[in-house]
């Protein structure tokens, strides 16, 4: 049994390929076959053109910090191991993701390049985080 107390993702039929890829330490996004846009988070239809012709594609894992905050007092007790860096990462392929930057809080800056880093938080769950590139 894991003693991990933070919220864990519960994959849906729509999102399961994303989390299964993360378990393999691969970042995989949906891509629209009609308008070619990459999509995050996973959906039933493309939010840009509403096509349902979506495929999965492994992406680079490279991005940059669009914005971030250092959480010094979390709103949820499960994140009492503060401070932690919450960020919006803009992926090279376009979409933005909510994630954590695994680095000293003082070193994180808006615009800094980052690289994906997988965090196996439980034997069944891998979160997609980022580290300075």
């Amino acid at each position: 049994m894991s003693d991990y107390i933070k919220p864990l993702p519960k994959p849906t039929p729509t999102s399961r390929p994303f989390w299964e890829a993360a378990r393999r330490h691969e970042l995989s996004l949906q891509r629209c076959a009609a308008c070619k846009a990459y999509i995050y988070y996973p959906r039933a239809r493309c939010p840009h053109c509403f096509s349902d012709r979506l495929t999965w594609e492994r992406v680079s894992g490279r991005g940059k910090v669009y914005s971030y905050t250092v959480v010094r007092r979390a709103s949820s007790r499960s994140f009492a191991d503060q401070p932690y860096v919450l960020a919006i990462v803009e992926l090279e392929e376009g979409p933005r993701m909510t994630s954590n930057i695994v680095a000293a809080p003082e070193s994180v800056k808006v615009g800094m390049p980052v690289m994906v880093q997988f965090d196996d938080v439980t034997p069944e769950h891998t979160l997609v985080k980022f580290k300075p590139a």
Partner: protein
Amino acid sequence: MSLKGTAAVVGIGELKPTREAPPEATALGLMSNAAAEAIADAGLETKDIDGFLCGMAFADAGMLYPASVAEVMGINPRMLNQVDIGGASPAGMVWRAAAAIQAGMCQAVLCVVGDLNKFGDQKPPVISVQREFEAPYGNIGANCGYAMIANRHMYEYGTTARQMAKVAVDQRRSAVKNPLATFNDRELTIDDVLNSRMIVDPLHLYEIVSPCSGGSAVVVASPEVARRTKHPPAWLLGAGEYSNHASITYAPSLTDSPVKVAAETAFKMAGVAHKDIDLVCPYDCYTITVIVTLEDAGFCKKGQGGNFVWDHDLSYAGDFPCNTHGGQLSFGQPGLGGGMSHVTEAVRQLMGRGGERQVKGARLAYVNGNGGIMSEQASLILERRS
């Protein structure tokens, strides 16, 4: 089709927020007390109320809520609904009430919110995609989203911590004149704000709204009903609403908000200019919210919000009166019932009932309600005619 002049806010009710939930209080009780005050303030009785819009309460979340709340109050509405756009709900209720009145469905609509302080330890969100893709990384509650907006605004436009802090300072100067405000015992300095505890960089404790318990309500009435109410009506001149994201992560921009479309729509409908506005009541869950809202509502250029609040006195006595009740930052935010205090204050000022903090000659007010993380926006322009 337009809602211009089709209805007016004719009565307001507002309970003094309390930081802890009183042991005897319930969300339904708080809503009932606020509603009774608003109906009496209009000079009406519950039997005159034939339209009903309520908000959501953390403390009493359930399905088929509007009929339950109306039943508690003994109100039999010809139009009833729940408006679920967060802190934009109250402003959104006002134009929905006017639309229902214009459509001939009802004559006097009670718009009510109320909630108990249930923040404390925030539970992960219940919306599935946010639970799955936000909560695991610690994006729970609203603080983080606004902090990331503030950091990006500082990065793009050079907005400073002192400029943001000044919003809280100026609004507090008005709160000191508001007996209903939660924090009205002393004025603040910029250093007080910047020396308060850092919660989520770059936002300090005094830049973050304090959850509380409370309730407030307004009555929106047809011109026919408005003729026989007690106070000078605050007429709806313009309204606009817009949303382009739920989680800020997927917003087109962190610094350009949906306020732009909502405000443009409202100003166009009203046919008034920004320079004609006597006071503004922009939703203020955080200091940065006011800066982004004033920019996107067109009171200053994009990116100049920090300089704008620095160059103007935002207090009731100043050259740009803004949130003269103290804003939610000083007034308090009753749970999910945020956003009504901005409507009630604008109406109070237009009715000439601002007391010590009355803005002299106030005739036109701009109100903006904001839900989620700048997600839902509802703008109103209200006018006193007599």
